[in-house]
């Protein structure tokens, strides 16, 4: 039993309890406790990253490490069997990068929050709750546990935007809350359907008396239970329903006459129910990613949120959407995933292009960056839809790299906003003359984001595009022209960044006259260096040494794509042939 994952999740929560007990006036200690918790979390994340064995994931989908599984809730439902929820956490190649990212960005966010003055105690309490729930999302392997963290993320975010945000904060906060809640309700519907359909073979074996309680289940016993299940030989009373995601990934664990079983033949509105479940889940996570056309909450939320919260939103919360697609949607519904890959990839490319075009038209620097997030997260969808090794590696790499770079971008916007209380592009000119160091970091962030070789953004985009171009041969899921269109998005992103750079930073120094009286244009201070330098270094390091991350995720992704593709095609065939009967 290894407690490192549990400590990762609950360190911030513990710190939040400490802060709860501190008097409101003690601003410094409250900040110090938060920083300490974030540092501990980062330390643990880095430790986990080094201890994580990239080679151990070779046996495909079950390569979770540092697993901790405890019974949490369990009760009998009479003739419906048992209801079981586990505290089940683990890490594999998909989550390790995001855990590391959460650790790193968590600390940057605290440093960036250092000059918060309004209601300090409440702010840092919510901040810590947010960190706990994000980390919990990335580590949970039980759907219920995941959903708990997923939903709980909304609340701190709602208040952080709504109380500490900009002028239209209330509208933005409510829009954010409603949008993402509706998304999670879609997920809830499918979650209920899945758990009524899926059993935990090990626990069922215990219930049937094939195993002693606490005894490890051997592969033979598991497959015996699964075979008996498929032959309807287990009485309802002994079935143990589960929320475990690995169990849901196994088609043999579905109860034969349940609606989400591959052979159930259940249809609704002329679509197999499994496809509908996939679409609901996809919609739920696509809102979070966000993908066009459900992205409209993001620009509002970003523009109104205070800088550190924008950083967290872009760097971490959006990743939960992409992570959910990779961890939950595709492995559980590989059939529908392959069937709808053109939809997923198409929406990805649409986001890339539409986001970039919007970014090009924005007058507010923060909005520009918000739309660039939409554009870049489109690559995650595209990479995943290819289901090639390169594509999925690229999608995960993109999430990590975008986490680092978007954090930097939003910090950079925060710097100018702190000084001039404005961030309209046309109100500034020639900032390079007044703030040379700042301009250097802006250039680094912009170039990293637009995919300049040498930065992490380049690696991820390259991988996704290679995957996309290879997809027609490798998996036959996506047409090549889709990837060609996506390449056009790269061009656009170069355009909006370079144009913004040219307008704001080059030429003779000038700022809009009405801003001058409040503005104090000085170059970066120590605190800002402390945030920007590490991020720039990370973007460079992961751009030059991609194997640092790819070594950790590669084998998991190998097994992942193989499994999803194989099962996808097999199950798709079964579903379609059952329907024809």
């Amino acid at each position: 039993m290894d407690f490192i994952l549990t400590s990762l999740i609950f360190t911030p929560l513990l710190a939040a309890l400490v802060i709860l007990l501190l008097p409101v006036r003690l601003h410094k200690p409250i900040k110090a406790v938060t920083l300490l918790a974030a540092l501990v979390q980062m330390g643990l994340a880095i430790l986990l990253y080094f201890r994580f064995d990239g080679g151990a994931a070779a046996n495909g989908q079950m390569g979770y490490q540092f697993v901790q599984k405890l019974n949490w809730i369990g009760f009998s439902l009479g003739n419906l069997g048992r209801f079981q929820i586990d505290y089940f956490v683990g890490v594999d190649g998909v989550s390790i990068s995001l855990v590391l990212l959460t650790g790193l960005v968590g600390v940057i966010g605290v440093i960036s929050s250092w000059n918060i003055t309004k209601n300090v105690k409440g702010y840092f309490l919510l901040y810590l709750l947010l960190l706990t729930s994000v980390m919990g999302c990335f580590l949970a392997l039980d759907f219920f546990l995941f959903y708990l963290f997923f939903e709980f993320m909304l609340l701190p975010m709602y208040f952080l935007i709504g109380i500490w945000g900009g002028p239209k904060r209330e509208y933005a906060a409510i829009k954010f809350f409603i949008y993402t809640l509706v998304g999670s309700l879609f997920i809830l519907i499918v979650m209920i359907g899945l758990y009524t359909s899926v059993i935990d073979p090990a626990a069922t074996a215990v219930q049937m008396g094939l195993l002693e309680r606490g005894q490890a289940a051997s592969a033979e016993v598991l497959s015996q239970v699964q075979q008996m299940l498929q032959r309807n030989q287990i009485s309802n009373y002994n079935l143990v329903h589960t929320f475990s995601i690995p169990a849901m990934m196994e088609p043999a664990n579905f109860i034969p006459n349940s609606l989400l079983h591959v052979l159930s033949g259940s249809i609704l509105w002329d679509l197999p129910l499994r496809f509908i479940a996939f679409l609901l889940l996809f919609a739920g996570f696509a809102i979070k990613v966000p993908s066009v056309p459900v992205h409209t909450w993001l620009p509002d939320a970003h523009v109104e949120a205070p800088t550190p919260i924008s950083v967290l939103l872009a760097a971490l919360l959006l990743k939960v959407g992409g992570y959910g697609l990779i961890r939950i949607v595709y492995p559980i519904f590989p059939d529908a995933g392959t069937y709808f890959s053109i939809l997923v990839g198409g929406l990805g490319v649409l986001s890339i292009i539409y986001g970039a075009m919007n970014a090009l038209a924005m007058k507010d620097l923060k909005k520009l960056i918000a739309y660039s997030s939409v554009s870049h997260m489109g690559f995650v969808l595209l990479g995943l839809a290819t289901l090639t090794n390169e594509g999925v590696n690229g999608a995960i790499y993109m999430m990590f790299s975008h986490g680092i770079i978007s954090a930097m971008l939003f910090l950079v916007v925060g710097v100018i906003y702190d000084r001039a209380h404005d961030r309209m592009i046309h109100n500034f000119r020639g900032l390079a003359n007044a703030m040379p160091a700042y301009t250097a970091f802006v250039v680094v962030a912009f170039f990293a984001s637009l995919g300049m070789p040498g930065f992490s953004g380049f690696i991820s985009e390259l991988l996704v595009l290679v995957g996309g171009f290879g997809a027609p041969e490798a998996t036959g899921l996506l047409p090549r022209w889709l990837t060609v269109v996506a390449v056009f998005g790269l061009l656009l992103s170069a355009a909006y960044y370079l144009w913004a750079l040219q307008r704001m930073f080059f030429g003779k120094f000038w700022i809009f006259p009405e801003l001058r009286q409040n503005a104090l244009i000085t170059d970066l201070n120590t605190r800002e260096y402390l945030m920007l330098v590490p991020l720039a270094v990370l973007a460079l390091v992961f751009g030059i040494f991609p194997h640092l991350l790819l070594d950790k995720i590669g084998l998991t992704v190998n097994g992942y794509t193989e499994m999803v593709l194989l099962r996808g095609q097999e199950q798709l065939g079964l579903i379609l042939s059952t329907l024809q009967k």
Partner: protein
Amino acid sequence: MNEQAVYLSDKLDAIIAGAGSLLPELVLAGFFLLLVTLDLFKAQRIKRLLPWLALTGLFWVLVLQVLGGYTSGDEPFLDLLLSDGMARFGGILFSAAGIFTVLMSLQHPRLEKLQEGRGEFYALILILVLGLNLMAKSVNLLMVFLAIELVSIASYILTLTFKQEKRAVEAGLKYVLYGTFSAGVMLYGMSFFYGLTGTLNYASEDFALGLLQADTLLVTVAAVLVLAGFFFKISAAPFHFWAPDVYQGAPMPVVALFSTGPKMAGILVILRFVNNFTDADAFADVQLLLGIAALVTLAIGNFTALWQRTPRRLLAYSSVSHAGFLLTALLAFGTGYTSSVLFYLTVLLFMNFGIFLLLQVAEEKYGVQTLEDFSGLGRLLPYFGVMSVLYLLSLTGLPPLAGFMGKLLIFSNVWEAYTSSGNPMLLVLLIIGILLTGVALFYYIKIPYYLFFKRNQSHENLVISPSDKLMLALFALPLLVFFFKPDLLLHWIEHLLAQTL
């Protein structure tokens, strides 16, 4: 003459033998009489004692029902009242609701200063709880009618506690009018059932058999008529019109009681009643109508709540929507939904008393009448603010609160029933029910929105009394515990239900 004597003595024997199972009701009736008698004395010392006396009685009944053991078996009392595990669990909830009401009333400044009818008020709470107990135990339609009327009459008077207030009078009048109307309709429907089956004992096999042989249309009409009366008690559409006015006009502890007690008892009565209609072929119409009623109740509750300007009316419609969720659960035939429903009712008890206590504090101490009046209160009183967020999220059904667990259980049952029956109505109810949670968030979140996002400088030196704080924590604690460990409660419910099977 002799035959009659034998018959009488048999009856007497049966009454004496079965009386043990009515011990909680007898205790309540005894305390009611005691309160009414003592209320005749003018001495202030005695008057001050009355609420505590009522509390003692309710507490006694609570302990009695928690411990159990007073009933001899599962023989119904004179074919009228059955003390099974469900009724016992219901009784526990009702006496808890009664206790909470009395405690809340003791915190209510205007009720405490009430010159006239203060003793009456507490006596009526006792009689209302007695009526609820009888509702939960009834297995005979006539007994149901009597029990419902007992509850209704007590409710009418309790609504009118502040007789001098215009809106209380309006509320009381509306309540009486709707109440008598639906009671009449219900009685009419019951007479149909007697004609169709030859028995009023609706939990018996004769009744179920009679229904299967009777004309489907007649059964449907009769069921609709009877359900009208039940729907009135649980404020389900289209018999919910009294709710907003009564919630607006009655004293807050009474509103809290109305939003829980009669709703819980009504659901238990409906639960027993619809058990006769599980046959999907014979009673497709009844099931369809129930489904439509659940859907309409959900829709009306949630969408009308969006336009409300006062917290009381908002919560009235929220209570309508909860009735919709409960009705949805009752349609998941064949899935053992009873324990899910009882779990939901328990959660509802704590959520509603918590939120209405908050409203009472806000109204009586901070003068909050409309939603706007909440502005800035959360910043000034973080405890108050955090508690209201907690209750409202539980009402919405978001984790990590028990409201979520309640909905999860109900929706699991509905999905399970859909799997086994393939009835598309269930899927529609499931999807609509879940998606309406999004709508629910939109109106519930208005209160935290004003509490935290809006500013108001006029409030000064607001305090929240320690006893209020304690009670708010008391109601909040189960909401957290039942989310993280729902099996604690569910095991107990299962245990109680299994006793009488």
